């Protein structure tokens, strides 16, 4: 078992990458909020793809 202090958990790296995408995240949230009573698959696919691209970029840079 690796010592706890030395390793950074994948979720922590994920969280720090996601924190750089607050604008895209807000846009996606706004899209869902607009119609949250009838959410179905891929309702906000466009906004999500932008959010995911922003996250991938931030994760690559880190």
């Amino acid at each position, binding site marked *: 078992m690796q010592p706890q202090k030395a390793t950074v958990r994948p*979720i*922590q790296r994920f969280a720090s990458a996601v924190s750089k995408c607050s604008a895209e995240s807000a846009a*996606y949230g706004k899209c869902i*909020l607009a119609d949250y009573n*009838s*959410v179905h*698959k891929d309702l906000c696919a466009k906004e*999500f793809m932008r959010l995911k691209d922003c996250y991938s970029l931030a994760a690559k840079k880190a």
Partner: protein
Amino acid sequence: MRLNLAPVCRPQQWKPLLTGGTARRSYAFQSGSLNFEVFNRRAKWLQKERAAANVEEGRQADYLKDEVAMRVCERLLDVKRQFPRVLDLGANSCNIARALLRPNPDPESEPPVTDPLATKITELVAAESSHSLLHRDHDHPSLSTAHVPDFKLSRHVLEHDELLPFEPETFDMVLSSMSMHWINDLPGVLSQINSVLKPDCPFIGAMLGGDTLYELRTSLQLAEQERKGGISPHVSPLADVRDVGGLLQRTGFKMLTVDVEDIVVDYPDMFALMQDLQAMGEGNAVLGREMGPIGRDVLLAGDAIYRALHGNEDGSIPATFRIIHMIGWKESPDQAKPLRRGSGQASLKDLLEGQ
């Protein structure tokens, strides 16, 4: 209303359940035993063992359990009795023992310095199914009994967390904090608590109920619905405060007191909340949940929705923990009982009209 979920939850066209069909456990059933399994006991035990292995993180994440244990023990300040033998059911990391050993528990009282609550108790039996969690703080200074020499903490590892291996009428009080929301057969456990209590002795408990983590539940439901087209349970079904009174009464407790309070904790993001829940040992253990970790897509979407739906102005997100406190007393012939119907002397109608 409880949804019957298939063992493997495949995405289906379900309406989003914002108020949550899976959120509330129902105890309003007809008499006659209904044996249902809601939680996977072995999964919960494994989660507790793993949480106990991360000692530092576990201690950091104990804030909620310590706070609730303190509030449970505050209710003891009003009882002017000595309790030779007390059971702490579902002790986790002995949070109740820590709260009892706190010096000066009531700074606002007269005289200004009060003895630790542990002076009212001679032996505290801390019962818990996870050995590692129970012994995690074995040598920690917060559990030192040096300043209360007559107090003894004995740890007991339960083989089965819903079967109490104690003789009937052997405890002067039963306490339980933040563990009853993982019990499958709550009526059964409550009746076992009732039987191990001596007559005219209290049971003081606190559990998570109702709308706990409703923000997390709704955000993950919406995220999963949008990303995958279906949902699977991420937050346990929890008892409602309205059912708790009926449950205690049916089990035979008298002089009931049930109250509810919300503790709202702010986190920087949804992932910090989920990490803390895991470190507390409060991960998902519902039978019928989708096995394996939540996918990155759903996590990403969930955090965005959480922030949009429930976020605070300063960028943090709130998480609600609804604590249900309950006090019930074991029946005893010399307890105050309600008067017989029809024995009233004064007429409320006359009193009110006379004004």
